[in-house]
């Protein structure tokens, strides 16, 4: 089954294995709420369970950290290990820092004259060159995935939106989450609220219980979901959308994925 998150994971890993084992990608900061400019360390991994390092590190090449004033901040002490990548960040400005890894690309497959399945991967232009004239069953999909998390020092500031692909837009600010208070998030596709987006929230600590305890939601006509977090802790949020609004004519399908790590305080 094609899943935008799987494709995002495959792209993030830099491999063309569509249909590979489903894995979750995430960044997990040591703190998301600070009352003073202080160091925060962030883990980034691709794994099976939240938030355990049991598969591969997440590449940080496409990591962009945006400060409250819109400037870009370089991660410090970035390192890629066996199971996780890690980097440090010291938020000096009051407001919200957005940490994001955005991947976009085109993937696909075709069958050559001998009936052999061949994979395609790259940008739209590169893919076009890879497909021979006699190719059959050409399937090309475009993919945009965004992996995000947020750290706020002092008073939360509004998020900067890209207006492209699938993204979370606060009604409730992602660094203002507590148990017992309902949070509302809007999901945008290409800058507009999107209805019927499937959203899943998974709480931390899967290893120490039997059930995954995921919370399944769907955006309403206004593109919103409302959630009351049952327990405090870190939550992994995953939203996926499939449409046909591709940016290149050779891709007939577009898969959008959005992943965020949210900290819910007691």
């Amino acid at each position, binding site marked *: 089954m094609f899943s935008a998150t799987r494709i995002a994971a495959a792209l993030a890993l830099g491999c063309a294995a569509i249909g590979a084992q489903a894995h979750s990608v995430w960044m997990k900061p040591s703190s998301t*709420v*600070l*009352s*003073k400019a*202080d160091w925060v360390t962030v883990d980034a991994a691709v794994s099976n369970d939240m938030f355990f390092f049991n598969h591969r590190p997440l590449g940080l090449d496409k990591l962009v950290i945006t400060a409250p004033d819109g400037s870009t901040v370089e991660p410090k002490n970035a390192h890629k290990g066996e199971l996780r990548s890690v980097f440090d960040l010291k938020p000096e400005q009051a407001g919200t820092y957005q940490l994001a890894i955005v991947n976009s690309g085109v993937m696909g497959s075709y069958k050559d004259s001998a009936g052999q399945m061949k994979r395609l991967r790259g940008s739209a232009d590169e893919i076009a060159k890879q497909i021979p004239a006699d190719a059959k069953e050409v399937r090309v999909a475009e993919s945009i995935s965004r992996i995000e998390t947020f750290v706020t020092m*002092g*008073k*939360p500031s509004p998020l900067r939106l890209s207006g492209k692909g699938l993204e979370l837009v606060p009604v409730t600010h992602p660094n*203002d989450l*507590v148990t017992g208070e309902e949070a509302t998030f809007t999901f945008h596709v290409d800058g507009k609220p999107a209805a019927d987006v499937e959203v899943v929230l998974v709480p931390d600590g899967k290893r120490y219980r039997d059930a995954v305890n995921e919370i399944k939601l769907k955006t309403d006509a206004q593109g919103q979901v409302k959630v009351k977090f049952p327990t405090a802790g870190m939550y992994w949020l995953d939203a996926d959308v499939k449409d046909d609004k591709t940016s290149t004519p050779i891709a007939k399908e577009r898969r959008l994925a959005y992943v965020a790590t949210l900290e819910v*305080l*007691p």
Partner: protein
Amino acid sequence: MTSTVSRFTVALTAVAGLPAVAGGLNLGVELPRLEVAEYHRPYVAVWLERADGTVAANLSVWYEVKKRDAEGAKWLKDMRQWWRRTGRELSVPIDGVTQPTKPAGKHALSFSEGSNPLPKLEPGQYKLQIEAAREVGGRELLSIPFEWPAKQATSLSAQGKTELGEIKLELKP
């Protein structure tokens, strides 16, 4: 009783030169003596919330004011409710509000309406909120609801279980 209050009211009016008498709050905060290996004086925040949850006043915030490089501000966020309601919008230290942390025992605070940090309060329902967070320790939040202005001198209290002891609130009409 009524005549005493009237005379008292007249006397105060003459002294203060105000058209109406300003009330006040007396607060008793008990920090329990805890038998722990590593004891740190708790961070404490006292504030008033209106019925709708908005903050009417920050009355007292005890934190490690004197630490180098404002290091003491690092733990203000651990007073979680205070931080979200008002703390994160403020810049500490604040004259008349912030103080150094205090030792275990009973502490008395006194506030007069119209005198920093207690502004003139609109009549209505309020909650006195007091939150304590202790390093290598726990966190506790107590609420004392009250109506303002008080028609007569009123004594209210709340009892903490872990990080706070007895909290006494006296309303002065």
